[in-house]
């Protein structure tokens, strides 16, 4: 059962890239929370713990051939849906939204778990049904249904950011599977229609965020505060940054959510454009490597799995960075491997585990 080739083909490049990025992330958390004097385990240590746990999970996933996972996709999906429903009914509320389940040692966010479940189930479907001519509008009703169920549940929480993430991941996989031109145009129109209709279905705070994004200076102490302070933090970092633990915006608490969603602002303020360039380079390499893994995958399931996981990481990076540098509205999306948070770290590491799994079994037919 255990093949020597598995060891020789182990994707060290992927693991090291992930560890370097996550290591920078932990150091950045150390700086971001340097001025906190509350007792208990420091956040960066907790994050280090999550990272170790994540690596363990990733390695564990590598032990099981991903092709067996294909058969568990449906079960995993069902359990995830169940958690979503549970959270809707009984979940804890933060800032008006029910998003997590308290498991004692950490808060499980089904919204994160469902991303993996959707990737698995769609990879399974696309692996079976992909054809050289691309899907027509009538052939995609099945994946559409699998996608719509969790999206509706997440929107009900409500969590627009996660719902969008799930849709982006699914769309990336679908586009890769191929669409007929007419279908592409049709879906494009449909998406526009939904977006317009969705504006009226948005919560006030969500609409305020979008309006604020368009003109943050109109409400500098209210909704625009996050964006303005983040832009000041990033911009005042300049070319070379203010130095480790020297960022005034972050150290003096002007930057909100600086250990979670706005962790990159802290990094960018303290390390400047040069530091940001290095970090973005690492992330870009991770994405390209993910696509490379997909290309070398032994089968179509592995290929779509890799594409899905890469899309997940990619969209999180883009939406989070776009948000903190004022290109996109503020939606609560963490930066993978960088923002503090157990669920995000575990979800990302599950994805990384799947990627490594696909990568190391590329020659096994």
């Amino acid at each position, binding site marked *: 059962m255990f093949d020597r080739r598995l060891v020789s083909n182990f994707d060290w490049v992927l693991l090291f890239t992930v560890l370097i990025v996550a290591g920078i992330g932990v150091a950045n958390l150390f700086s971001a929370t340097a*001025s906190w004097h509350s007792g208990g385990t420091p956040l960066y240590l907790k994050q280090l713990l999550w990272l170790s746990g994540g690596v363990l999970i990733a390695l564990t996933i590598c032990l099981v051939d991903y092709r067996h996972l294909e058969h568990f996709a449906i079960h995993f999906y069902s359990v995830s849906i169940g958690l979503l429903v549970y959270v809707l009914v009984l979940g804890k509320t933060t800032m008006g939204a029910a998003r997590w389940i308290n498991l004692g040692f950490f808060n499980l966010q089904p919204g994160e778990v469902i991303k993996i479940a959707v990737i698995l189930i769609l990879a399974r479907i696309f*692996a079976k049904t*992909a*054809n*050289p001519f691309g899907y027509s509008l009538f052939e995609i009703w099945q994946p559409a249904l699998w996608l719509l169920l969790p999206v509706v549940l997440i929107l009900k929480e409500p969590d627009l950011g996660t719902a969008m993430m799930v849709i982006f991941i699914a769309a*990336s996989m679908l*586009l*890769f599977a*191929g669409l007929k031109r007419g279908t592409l145009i049709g879906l494009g129109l449909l998406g526009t229609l939904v977006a317009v209709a969705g504006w009226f279905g948005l919560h006030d705070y969500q609409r305020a965020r979008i309006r604020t994004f368009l003109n943050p200076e109109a409400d500098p102490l209210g909704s625009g505060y996050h964006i303005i*302070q983040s*832009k*000041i*933090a*990033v*911009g*005042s*970092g*300049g*070319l070379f940054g203010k130095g480790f633990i020297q960022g*005034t*915006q972050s150290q*003096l*608490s*002007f930057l909100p959510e600086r250990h979670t969603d706005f962790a990159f602002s802290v990094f*960018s303020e303290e390390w*400047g*454009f040069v530091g*940001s*360039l290095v970090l*973005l380079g690492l*992330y*870009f390499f991770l*994405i*390209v490597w993910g*696509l490379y893994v*997909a*290309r070398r995958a*032994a*089968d*179509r399931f592995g*290929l779509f799995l890799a*594409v899905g996981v890469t899309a997940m990481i*990619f969209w999180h990076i*883009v939406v989070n*960075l*776009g948000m903190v*540098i*004022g*290109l996109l509205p503020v939606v609560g999306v963490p930066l993978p491997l960088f923002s503090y948070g157990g669920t995000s770290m575990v979800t990302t590491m599950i994805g990384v585990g799947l990627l490594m799994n696909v990568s190391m079994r590329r020659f096994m*037919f």
Partner: protein
Amino acid sequence: MALDQKWKELPAVQRRFLFYSAAAAVIFLLLLLRLWYLQVISYEDLQERSIRNRTRVLSLDAPRGPIFDRNGVLLVDNRPSFQISVMRQDVENRTLLFERLSPLLDMEISELEQRWQEGRRFPIYRPVPLAEDVTREIMERVQEHSVDLPGVLTEVRPVRDYLDHGSAAHLIGYLGEITEAELQSGDFKLYRGGDFIGKTSLERTFDPYLRGEKGRRLVEVDVQGKLLRQLQVEPSRPGNKIYLTLDRELQRAADTAFGSQSGAAIALDVKTGEILAMVSRPTFNPAWFAKGIAGDEWNALAQDNRHPLQNKVIAGQYPPGSTFKIVVALAALREGINNTVDCKGDFVIADSRYRCWKKRGHRITDLKKALRESCDVWFYQTGLELGIDKLSVAAKEFGLGAPVGYPLPGERSGLIPSQEWKRQRYNKPWYAGETVIASIGQGFVLATPIQLAVMMAAVANHGKVLKPQVVRRVEDWDGHLLLQPEPEVVRQVEYSQKTWKAVRDALVAVVNEPHGTGHAARLDNVLVAGKTGTSQVIRRKSDEEELDEEGKTPYRFRPHALFVAYAPAEKPEIAVAVVVEHGQSGGRAAGPIAKQIIQRYMELKEEISPELEE
């Protein structure tokens, strides 16, 4: 599996890997462009905003400029005062803190709580004062317990310190808390509620010179406004030094001579118009205002019917009485009226009888005797011949009836009546009887002590009317001269030498000859020229009614005592005017005060001159 591979090998699918990588590259490039825009292109703007974000400016009190006398003797300075304040941001348990502080400061907990609440309108990084100007003992007690008093700090603030128990308080003036209107006027940069500024007299008029420039303390705060550390200090610049025209020694002499009576005294330098001493009684101590005066203390001062807050030298308007006769005599000689009158003790016109102060009468009286012995009848007769309008013109030439230009606020104009004035004021014709009583400085005639001093200086100067000066010079701390007022001649009053001599000789006789009413002001070593005055306050129906238990006239009905003088008579240097309210007799009550001032002036001159001769 083979099918898998075949699909993957399709050029369209292979292109998708390339396309996805390229799309990712483009998006990452966009992110980098945005970062470039923020961190390189907008750097300066955002950098500046990040500095503004975290810094706040605290102002530092500037010590007020000191005030010296003409010889550089310190009159008003600043002393350090200890203020116990609390940084709200550092207090976790307010109840406990106040329980500990209350016995240390001798203050009720409720009082501390009230101060705390008042401080809440200020930003959290600014200390809230709990107790101002506490004693050194209390300050030390608080510092001993500082470990148990988190957030409590001792600040040292400059407070106005008045040496000599607030001598010349009316000239110097006092401080008070800045008002909302003053804050909004834009004249007070960096000032805030609770700051003190000059409110009256010199402290007010010269406030721009005295206040100095506040310093700034740039501090770093966090998002809650909590003070974290000090970044930069611009020290405050103390206010400029003011040298007054006052002579501290002469001022002390005038203070001592006046004692506890009510009234005013002023001494002028005849050549320059500089005020050498200025006394207004009763007085107050500006120190009471230096740290904020309590409401009831203020009311006691403001409602005292002897008016301690009023500067009677410039705002006390008194009938000048016989001191006015100097002007009448001069004006009469100018008009060629040089009477010799037989004074029988009274004077009758149009069925009205006007008495001379000497009931037996002065008998044959000429100008010199009339002034020397202050014969009322001679002046009734002369004034009537002169007429009120000519008298009025002469009086106004000497600075009476209008402000003399005292450089600080609050001066009143007194009153010199004329026919025209009465028509406008009362719409009634002028009566001869009114001229009669105006001729002895009664009736409508009113003058302030400073006007009488200016008049006397002009007589001493052969008609040169000078504007009174208060400030000799203003200097900054590097010794640069900022202001040095020059003597200012208001006008030259023209009289013949003969006229001057006649009147001035008579004024010397007042003090130095037998029967002179001013003999109380006579000095051995210097020839004093002067004139007494005793002015009726309220005209009574008869001399007999309303006597108090001891058979004396009740205080409020007693006449004011006046004395004006200059010395040395041959070559005058100092002019003095003294008014003792309800002092009964000009010669006996006011004369000795003038004498002591002149005497001290001569002594001080003696002390300095030998050195100059060496």
